[in-house]
């Protein structure tokens, strides 16, 4: 029981300090202090995380939280990305009358994302997702005060509530199927009934209840990750709000949505992998294609980036689809297990998380650049406003070019390693055509082809922006209003992106060791379908990252 409090300590620290921030807003404390204070709050939370990183959980004890080594990596990444968000907003909030509320809500939202990562219970998971949504509504409202902004906020609010209801309905079916709300218990119940080793038709599932639950969960979380066809809000909301809020929407719900999807659907819904695989596959294909094709038509920069963020959700779903396949084909899965002393490759789920990390870092930087360029009450709207930035703001333009090339997937930037990983997991999927003969799964081959064609389509609009910045003469001299901290935040993000890109070995190594740890006996979040083989063959000590 005590471990629960230790595990959620970083989140508690954040949420508690967030309340103090909101209370402190009623006192006359200078607005420029709140940004640095928020960084201090994140530092305290990081200290708490460092303290709680050593806590291990007894897997037999029924707790509402759990945390694998992989989750720990996500938590650290969340804090890092949160710090970058605070950094880029310091300048624009330094004069704001609502700075305290702004940072309070930002911290609350961040603690929500971090709670999603450790939630081991459907109810806690749902509440943490709401802890992200509610501050978002207010933040959207705080950002701008015009008709477009109000429309965007209302739209986001209504659709978010609808999606939460759908998700909750899915959770209800899951509870009905298993009689439990804890994820590890659900997993145990399902794997004894439908698991790959206990079933004649592995992955096909016997109960329609599970399939309905899976569908509803995909629909509910599809809103969070902005997957087509649940994406309709994204372009309007991004366009109708500030660059900072748009960046936050592009990153925070995406992280939370994917982590929740992985924890619930990929890890816990054992026995329904075939349905999950098909769903993820179709969603991936239409999300990539829809997002990229529509992004081609955009001239509003935030709208364009909204469609681009939709498209990237599609690439991440490729890894999810491959992860489902790995789950019901543990012995066929070429990924993972160590081979002749080499470290394991990332599996499908790990590849998605790698993509998520690459995407999040890049997006923070990209939207941070827009925050830096904006002036109070005057956002960068049309892409033409970036014209000639290479001449007028060379440093910022170079950083933005790094982000855009990374999103386009040009080696050796993180976007490339991420795309490579997800395509690799898709192409590692095998199908048995006759006894003992395996060929590349045609559906996944097609998915990979669609994926790379999309990467090329994506290249068109990213390159359009780069061409605007570097190949054209400036139309006017921009007067950036974001302040030096914003520029520093953008450059930090660029440095991180470059480091990640040039030393991918570090990230792959971390993922591989997390992968081992996630499947070793000490972790509470087991995935029997995938890990039974490996458990038998290896029992390594958990690496403390």
């Amino acid at each position: 029981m005590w471990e629960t409090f230790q595990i959620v300590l970083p989140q508690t620290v954040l949420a508690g300090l967030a309340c103090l921030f909101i209370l402190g807003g009623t006192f006359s404390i200078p607005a420029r202090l709140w940004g640095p204070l928020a960084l201090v709050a994140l530092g305290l939370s990081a200290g708490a995380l460092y303290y709680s990183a050593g806590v291990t959980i007894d897997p037999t004890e029924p707790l509402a939280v759990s945390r694998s080594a992989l989750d720990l990596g996500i938590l650290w990444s969340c804090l890092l990305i949160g710090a970058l968000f605070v950094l880029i907003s310091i300048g624009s909030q330094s004069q704001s009358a609502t700075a305290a509320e702004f940072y309070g809500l930002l911290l609350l939202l961040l603690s929500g994302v971090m709670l999603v990562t450790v939630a081991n219970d459907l109810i806690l998971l749902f509440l943490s997702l709401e802890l992200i949504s509610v501050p978002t509504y207010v933040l959207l409202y705080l950002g701008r005060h015009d008709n477009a902004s109000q429309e965007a906020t209302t739209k986001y609010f209504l659709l978010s509530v609808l999606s939460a209801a759908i998700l909750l309905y899915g959770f209800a079916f899951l509870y009905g199927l298993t009689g439990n709300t804890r994820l590890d218990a659900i997993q145990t119940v399902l794997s004894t009934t439908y698991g790959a080793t206990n079933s004649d038709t592995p992955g096909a599932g016997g109960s329609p209840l599970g399939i309905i639950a899976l569908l509803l969960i995909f629909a509910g979380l599809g809103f969070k990750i902005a997957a087509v066809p649940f994406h309709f809000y994204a372009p309007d909301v991004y366009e109708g709000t500030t660059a900072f809020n748009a960046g936050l929407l592009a990153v925070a719900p995406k992280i939370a949505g994917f982590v929740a999807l992985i924890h619930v659907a990929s890890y816990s819904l054992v026995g329904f992998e075939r349905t999950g695989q098909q769903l993820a596959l179709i969603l991936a294909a239409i999300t990539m294609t829809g997002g990229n094709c529509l992004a081609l038509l955009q001239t509003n920069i935030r709208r364009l980036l909204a469609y681009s963020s939709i498209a990237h959700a599609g690439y991440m779903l490729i890894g999810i689809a491959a992860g489902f396949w790995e789950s019901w084909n543990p012995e066929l899965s070429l990924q993972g297990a160590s081979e002749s002393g080499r470290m394991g490759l990332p599996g499908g789920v790990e590849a998605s998380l790698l993509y998520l990390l690459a995407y999040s870092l890049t997006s923070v930087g990209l939207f941070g650049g827009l925050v830096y360029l904006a002036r109070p009450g005057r956002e960068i709207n049309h892409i033409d406003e970036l014209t000639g930035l290479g001449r007028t703001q060379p440093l910022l333009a170079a950083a933005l070019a790094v982000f855009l090339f990374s999103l386009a997937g040009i080696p050796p930037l993180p976007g490339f390693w991420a795309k490579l990983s997800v395509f690799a997991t898709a192409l590692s999927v095998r199908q048995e055509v006759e006894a003992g003969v395996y060929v590349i799964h045609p559906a996944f081959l097609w998915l990979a082809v669609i994926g790379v064609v999309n990467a090329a389509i994506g290249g068109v609009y990213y390159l359009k922006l780069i061409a605007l910045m570097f190949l054209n003469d400036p139309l006017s001299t921009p007067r950036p209003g974001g302040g030096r901290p914003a520029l520093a935040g953008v450059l930090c993000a660029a440095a991180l992106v470059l480091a990640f890109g040039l030393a991918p070995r570090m990230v792959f190594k971390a993922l591989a060791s997390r992968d081992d740890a996630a499947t070793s006996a000490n972790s509470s979040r087991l995935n029997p379908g995938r890990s039974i083989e490996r458990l038998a063959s290896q029992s390594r000590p958990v690496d403390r990252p």
Partner: protein
Amino acid sequence: MNDTALLTLIIFAPTIGALFVALCNPKADGRMRAIANAASLVSLVLSIGAWWYKFDSSVGGMQMVVNHTWIATWNVNYQLGLDGISLPLVLLTCLISYLALLASTSITKAVKGYLILFLLLETGMLGVFLALDFFLFYVFWEVMLLPMYFLIGVWGGPRREYAAIKFFLYTLVGSVLMLIALLMFYFDSGGSSFGKTFDIVALAQIGQGRDASYQFTPFVQMTAFILLFIGFAIKVPVFPFHTWLPDAHVEAPTPISMILAGVLLKMGGYGIIRIAFPICPIGAQYAAHALVVLGVVSILYGAFAAMAQTDFKRLVAYSSVSHMGYVLLGIAVWKLTEGTGETVGRDYWQMGMNGAMFQMIAHGISSPGMFFIVGVIYERVHHRDLNQFGGLMGLMPLYSGLAVGIFFAGLGLPGLCGFIGEIFTVLSTWNYNPLYAILAASGVILTAGYILWTVQRVYLGAEYKGPHAEGITPITDREFGIAAVLLALCIVLGVYPELLFSQMRASVDLLVDNLANTKGLIKAAADVTGL
């Protein structure tokens, strides 16, 4: 000097130069150019040294192989090597890069950025030709893409932005298709005795059935061949994937046009010879006929299109499409009997392969020469309209002499380098199908047509008809030097082709033998495709 240091320095000497240029004061024009020239010269000298002292032309396989772990997780290695197929291309790349850098004096805008990008481009190109690891090959392939995009986009002509984006996107489409093939090989090689690998030599053994435990299935080979071929065909360029080329070549500044025509197009041909054919022989044998047809169409289409141009540079650009058609033709004339899968006239195919390689080098010398010639006159009169020249022979006799020599080399005049490659490929095509040989040979006549017509309109005639007549000055010593080196090579290779053939014969021989002896061609393949 050990092989690791030698090959690494050949590739990365330009990058080191770029670092030094980056540290220079942007105003110190002369110093930056000197550093860049020196860096490029280091690569050239080292590659000639590697050829002269280390390369053994009697060995068909890879030489000077270097192998170090790069990304252990993926089994990616820093693996380099040379053989008779890559060595001439490495030498060509170093030479053309050096000459193009010398020709870059006409670039005066943002010289620092230009030189840095140029040197990075050279590293990318050399890396592509030296890499023996498919992943490394892919990374170098993409590394070359970004500098080229900016070089065209920033320093190019009036429509540079359009041309740069078009170039980038075409190449990106090709390279992402290559990425799928790369990953397919990687995972499919898991069953072989090599384990999952990106090693091009090992993959070729698996594809040709020379590996004891596994051979790529016909399905994999055919799928991968199509993906790879589209990727490389865009680069060559083969009709109908060629439309980026006239725009990119025309808009690029002269030195970059020289690089594009001289080296970048060769990367497509090299990819087909080094990767697509050896790793997917079963895919290749099914596609051979289509490839031959595409080659012939490229030859004829390029020639007709060139004939219709009024822009001097565009004409040269289309002539590249036509000349590179011979390369594809020579590679693809692989004739197999129906049913048994025996290679018919193996020696003819080898001749075609040799001709294709020779044509790559010959075109890599004559085409940059032609672009340089166009650049020289464009700098003086600032237009390229073929109908507004004339009489240059009288005004610039030395320049015109060099120009006519280089154009005749492109035309394929016996005694100059263009002739050998064309005649070899056309002769070997006769064995494949006389009709295609006749069509391909008629391309030679068309080429003669547009080149002679061009020479007549530009250099002959009584007087110069265009604007800026006052700008016409005799060529400088530097310009003379660059053109003279290229013309001299055209003549040497034309008179003594053995110089080149002797270096690549053993490797081409080995390649053709291996491909002809591939397990599971046609008949056996037909049984397995029932999958």
